[in-house]
């Protein structure tokens, strides 16, 4: 069997196990205190997720993330739709959306703290600021993507504006909106973590800070991997929905 066909048979996700094994070796024999063996991190992770402090932090984080994302959706999608259907809105706002989608918004978090207080509100605002722009851009792209012949068809059959909007434009833009949502979740997760570690008093940010100050490396890495895993699962979950509607993305 050639190496190529061998690799075809091994699920690609398995290479993560190889990386974990490498980590284990470094942790055991590398002599770096900062990198404990993977096995003890895993054991610690199982312990940690059962502690009250973790569950509390998870609840606080989930709340901030949930509210921030909800705001981003409630603001971002209508804004994207407006920019997609109404030229002046696009021309007035496009520059700003494009600035904020790639600018280092981290720099804004310190400015939020005196405005909104050093607490949950600032984290919510951070999530919102990280997530909203990609939703706006993708929604707008989706609306644009709906072919004008579909809209013409609906008009020729006497569709009203509302009908055209809800029966043609919105479903037509759905694949992009869902992609925007997935990317917004990726960014929102980064936003919630960044907001929390800058504030360092809340949720996972507080726990990270606590573990680092006390040099609890096993706990620190365990929490890092748990958070990474949560983020991955969340993003994949949106990805599943996204792929369900992808079947008509290519034929509009």
């Amino acid at each position, binding site marked *: 069997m050639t190496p190529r066909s061998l690799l075809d048979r091994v699920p*690609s996700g398995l290479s*993560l196990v190889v990386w974990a094994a490498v980590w284990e070796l470094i942790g055991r024999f590398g002599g770096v205190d900062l990198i404990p063996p993977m096995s003890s991190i895993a054991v610690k992770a199982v312990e940690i997720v059962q502690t009250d402090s973790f569950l509390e932090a998870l609840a606080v984080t989930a709340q901030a993330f949930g509210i921030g994302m909800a705001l981003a959706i409630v603001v971002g999608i209508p804004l994207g739709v407006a920019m997609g259907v109404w030229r002046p809105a696009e021309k007035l706002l496009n520059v700003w959306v494009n600035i904020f989608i790639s600018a280092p918004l*981290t720099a804004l978090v*310190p400015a939020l703290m*005196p405005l909104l207080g050093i607490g949950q509100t600032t984290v919510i605002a951070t999530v919102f600021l990280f997530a909203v722009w*990609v939703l706006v851009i*993708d929604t707008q792209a989706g609306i644009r993507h709906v072919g004008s012949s579909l809209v013409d068809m609906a008009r020729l059959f006497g569709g009203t504006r509302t009908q055209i909007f809800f029966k043609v434009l919105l479903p037509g833009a759905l694949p992009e909106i869902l992609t925007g949502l997935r990317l917004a979740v990726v960014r929102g997760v980064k936003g919630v973590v*960044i907001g929390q570690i800058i504030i360092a008093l809340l949720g996972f940010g507080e726990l990270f800070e606590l573990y680092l100050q006390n040099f609890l490396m096993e706990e620190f890495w365990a929490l890092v991997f748990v958070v990474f895993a949560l*983020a991955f699962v969340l993003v994949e979950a949106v990805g599943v929905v996204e792929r369900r509607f992808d079947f008509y993305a290519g034929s509009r």
Partner: protein
Amino acid sequence: MTQIEPSRRTEADAAALAPAAAVAGTAPPIATEDGVIGARSDAGWIWQLASFVLVLGAWEIAGRWPISLAFPPFSRVMTALVEMTAAGDFTHAYAITLPPLVVGVTVVGVLGVALGIAMGLSRGFEWIGMPLMVVLQTAPIAALIPLLTYFYGVSATSKTAAVILLSAPIVVLNSYRGIRNTNASLIDMCRCFLGTRLQQVTKIMLPHASGMIFAGLRLGISAGFIGVVLAELLISPTGIGDLISYNRSIARYDKMFAAIVSILALATITLSVLQRLENRLFRPDHAVS
């Protein structure tokens, strides 16, 4: 191009490269198109001006209202910006902030691109690297930045590491995808005319991927800005991050916002210059947008 642009962009690129069936008749000469571009951007200017007036005006009004003492109006922030520029605050701050960013992005630009290309060309590299990169791209890696002080202390190296950590995944993935998305029929064509594997890589895949690799670098720089600012806020209070934190701590909110505006503007200008360069170098047919 996952992170920043509308998602279907990759497909749009592919469609632009694949000869469209509908194209009939010769495309107009470039000169005419240039005329159109000129006309369009003339009208665009007015809109852009209106757009800036609208948003900055709203900021001014909200600041004067006042919403909060911590939210100074735009004019005050601009005054502070001018003052700080005159005092040399920014020169000093960016002399500290930019080197780690440049070094980090350069390292990623060499090693990350090489790794991405290797993953695109070799099944082995792909198998071992791809899942890790995909996970890292969705993961909030920023959580690791506070840890960096334990590795490199409060130093420029920590900042460079932060830049590398945040920018590497997107650069690697874009390079990989650039190679991987090479039009299959171009590869068939190369094989059919007896091109060697080396020719396939140098004459087809690399030129084909170059646009996407460059776009990846642009996204990497965007992530690098986030990384360096975060490092300065979290671990090493120097440079522009310090300018922000310090002015916040002494409640000089106009100066704090001036510092924030300066970094946002710097990032925006850098990225849009790169975007223009990219359009010019790799997508002459897309130069309009």
